């Protein structure tokens, strides 16, 4: 027994070494950290920092072939040395866990009531009626409407936010003193995220749990954490109260991390002479008709007029309308951001512009050509002038092709003259433009990091000097510092080459960094469109306002003020509704 400390959870010199065929990975190195009673401690860091492993060690959930060192004291007992029986009673009883992806944290073939009861059964609640009563109680506490009736429902019958609520209910079931929340909102939309964060706060306030929150989102940290621990490559860099950390970070790495976070309202860093350098008058126009600012310009890069797009999931089923009556123009050289939550139809619009979706109604012109009824051959010709950047850099490359082959592919497809040597020279040029060393040409995609791959994606998109680039969530799979780098490169290349761009993202702060104008999509409809500054700072539509309000600002003081300003009694289940 440690005696001196009453902290519910304490890591002492925790070391985790994991053996892999390639050698031993020192995943966590000598982390000493204490969770105080009733606090929310955020562990932040980029992917690979060891934050998740550290937190999971609190429950003894370790990957295979892990060697441990140090101690993890949970309520005074060392989890790492605990016998299996003791470990079982700790898990769920003393400490519980909330997972990142609620849809995979619930077993799809059992009703949620059964799954909730499992935790109680494992901890000796043998009376079925008692189990049921407590299950219903927990579901009600986390805001599942009509819990008695829904006990027998299966996970797929709930929405993403509701599933996360159920996962939280499971964690709370035995009133553990410690809750480990591993990226609990990463998989959710911002409006849902705000609700889940409120619920976590209630877990602390009403149930007296101390919470370890693992996240990479500095906005979430500012919103909810009391103290913050920063990790980098397995080591603890800095621990500080949240205000102090944001106000005056001690370590260089923390400063760097904070600087990389895009802030909503941070605005664009305009170069000195923006109007002159921009190829069209796009960047100085704040009116929505950017076309009029450049009267001599040819047809706009993209023109959508009352576009409907329908999906048919199977033969004979009712078509689902993914996009309804969207009108939008992108002028030559203009960057238009498209934001919206999942299912808003933003990616569908991007795909339609690339000719992957057929338009059910309305007019869709790309670079002056009407896409409806465009012959296949003409479409392929048109695609030569459009570049595409995809969300998942891992999946967007054929693993049988080298980086060079990937960049050259568009040139081969369109039989760009000059032959192999000219193609390779161009590829080298492009890799240089995205700041990748020439030696990478011979590597395979899986030998690159996510950020590097995304830069290759950009190089590939620009291979044929496109007039239009469509970027679909290009940075959402990346860490913030990597994201900052990719966005930088994107912006400078856009200025240099002057292509028009449609930038699709769920992250308002990212869109603000580079878009001239922003469109906001909700349920397939374009609810607001205007100059970036105007939309994000003086939103007109209530949905835009709600969206912006839901994004936590990565500044604890500001976020606190915003939270106070909110209606304290606002209904949690607003957007979730009853399914």
């Amino acid at each position, binding site marked *: 027994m440690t005696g001196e400390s009453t902290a519910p959870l304490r890591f002492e010199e925790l070391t985790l070494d994991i053996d892999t065929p390639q050698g031993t990975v020192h995943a966590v190195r000598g982390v000493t950290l204490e969770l105080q009673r009733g606090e929310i401690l955020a562990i932040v860091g980029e992917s690979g920092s060891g934050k998740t492993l550290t937190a999971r060690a609190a429950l003894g959930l370790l990957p295979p072939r892990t060697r441990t060192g140090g101690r993890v004291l949970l309520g005074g007992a060392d989890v790492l040395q605990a016998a299996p029986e003791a470990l079982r009673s700790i898990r769920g009883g003393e400490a519980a866990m909330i997972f990142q992806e609620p849809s995979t944290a619930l077993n799809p*073939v059992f009703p949620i009531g059964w799954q909730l009861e499992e935790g109680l059964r494992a901890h000796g609640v043998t009376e079925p009626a008692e189990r049921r009563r407590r299950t219903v109680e927990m579901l009600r506490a986390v805001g599942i409407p009509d819990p008695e009736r829904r006990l027998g429902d299966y996970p797929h019958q709930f929405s993403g936010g509701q599933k996360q609520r159920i996962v939280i209910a499971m964690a709370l079931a035995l009133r553990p003193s410690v809750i480990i929340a591993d990226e609990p909102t990463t998989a959710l939309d911002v409006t849902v995220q705000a609700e889940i964060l409120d619920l976590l706060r209630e877990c602390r306030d009403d149930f007296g749990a101390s919470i370890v929150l693992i996240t990479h989102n500095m906005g979430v940290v500012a919103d909810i954490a009391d103290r913050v621990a920063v990790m980098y490559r397995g080591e603890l860099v800095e621990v500080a109260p949240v205000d102090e950390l944001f106000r005056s970070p001690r370590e260089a790495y923390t400063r760097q991390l904070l600087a990389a976070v895009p802030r909503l309202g941070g605005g664009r860093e305009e170069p000195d002479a923006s109007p002159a350098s921009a190829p069209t008058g796009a960047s100085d126009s704040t009116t929505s008709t950017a076309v009029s600012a450049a009267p001599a310009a040819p047809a706009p890069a993209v023109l959508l007029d009352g576009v409907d797009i329908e999906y048919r999931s199977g033969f004979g089923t009712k078509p689902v309308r993914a996009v309804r009556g969207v009108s939008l123009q992108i002028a030559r050289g203009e960057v238009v951001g498209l934001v919206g939550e999942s299912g808003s139809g933003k990616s569908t619009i991007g795909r339609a512009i690339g000719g992957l979706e057929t338009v059910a109604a309305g007019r869709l012109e790309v670079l002056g050509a009407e896409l409806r009824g465009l012959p296949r051959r003409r479409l392929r010709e048109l695609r030569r002038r459009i570049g595409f950047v995809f969300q998942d850099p891992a999946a967007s490359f054929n693993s049988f092709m080298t980086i060079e082959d990937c960049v050259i592919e568009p040139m081969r497809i369109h039989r760009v003259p000059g032959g192999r040597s000219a193609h390779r020279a161009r590829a080298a040029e492009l890799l240089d433009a995205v700041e990748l060393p020439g030696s990478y040409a011979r590597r395979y995609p899986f030998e690159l990091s996510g950020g590097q791959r995304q830069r290759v994606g950009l190089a590939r998109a620009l291979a044929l000097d496109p007039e239009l680039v469509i970027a679909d969530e290009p940075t959402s799979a990346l860490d913030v510092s990597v994201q900052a780098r990719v966005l930088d490169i994107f912006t400078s290349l856009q200025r240099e080459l002057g292509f028009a761009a449609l930038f699709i993202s769920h992250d308002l702060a990212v869109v603000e960094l580079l878009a001239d104008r922003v469109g906001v999509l909700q349920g397939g409809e374009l609810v607001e469109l205007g100059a970036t500054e105007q939309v994000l700072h003086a939103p007109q539509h209530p949905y835009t306002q709600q969206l912006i309000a839901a994004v936590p600002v990565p500044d604890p003081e500001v976020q606190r003020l915003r939270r106070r300003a909110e209606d304290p009694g606002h209904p949690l289940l607003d957007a979730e509704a009853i399914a």
Partner: protein
Amino acid sequence: MLRFIFRRLLSLLPVLFVVSVVIFSLIHLTPGDPARAILGQNATNEQVAALRESMGLDRPLVEQYLGWVGGVLTGDFGDSYFLRKSVTEAIGDNAVPTIQLAVIAIIVAIVLSVPFGTLAARFRGGRLDRSVMGFTLIGMTVPSFVLALALMVVFGLMLRWLPISGYVNPFEDFAGGIRTLIMPGIALGAITAALITRTTRAAVLDVLNADYIDAARSRGVAEGRLLFSHTLKNASLPVLTIIGLSLGGLVTGAAVTETIFNIPGLGQLLVTSIARRDYPVIQGVILFVTLIYLLTNLLIDLLYGIVDPRVRVGKA
């Protein structure tokens, strides 16, 4: 649910069409004349022509096909050239032993494979896992007729524990029936057992890697309960599929096993019919077996719906 069954039944129609065409064309692929083949080289041309007419071989192909399908739909598979009974009767007489054999084989397979596959997955990489995987490799390698012969030599001829041939209906004499069927059943079930073991192991491993198992573990659910209550239901989906698919292999193997053990089943009927070119019987048996196979797999599809709520409640 009813709509689901109806849709599944509907989707069988094109498959059955293809099957019927393939089976029907078997006769017409034959180089030479079936009538001549039946009557032998000494028959006169008139005799052959008469037989052709009585068999309907002189009619256009489409007409013959439609006539055959029409008959099949009303349960009339035609008459055997040799057996002096209708194909339907022949199938009826021979189906029972084959079905009993298949049931025993599948029971042997499931009883052996599911526990061992599960345990192998649980103790992955351990000694048990290695030996189970080794056995499955042997099980998949040793052809069923070799295994049958080996069993016959050891238990039938050397130890004299079990009869080496013949068939007793277990519904009439249970002990005797089992004694005659157990060796062929094991010989037949071995490959299937190996296959199901491997599938079970892979499926359980997959499920054990899932987040929800970690989630349950993080709530303190015991490892044993984790394996049997939380994992097996999910893992049963691919296992069910492979059981359905391996039924085809069972019937195939039955042809060989029945011949070795001299069991009057469909397999033996088919082999003898092929030897004497009794086309109506060949067609009938293959069609009947295929139909049984398709219906069992339909049944398994329905079971799928019971195990997995997403199939049941999801988009129907």
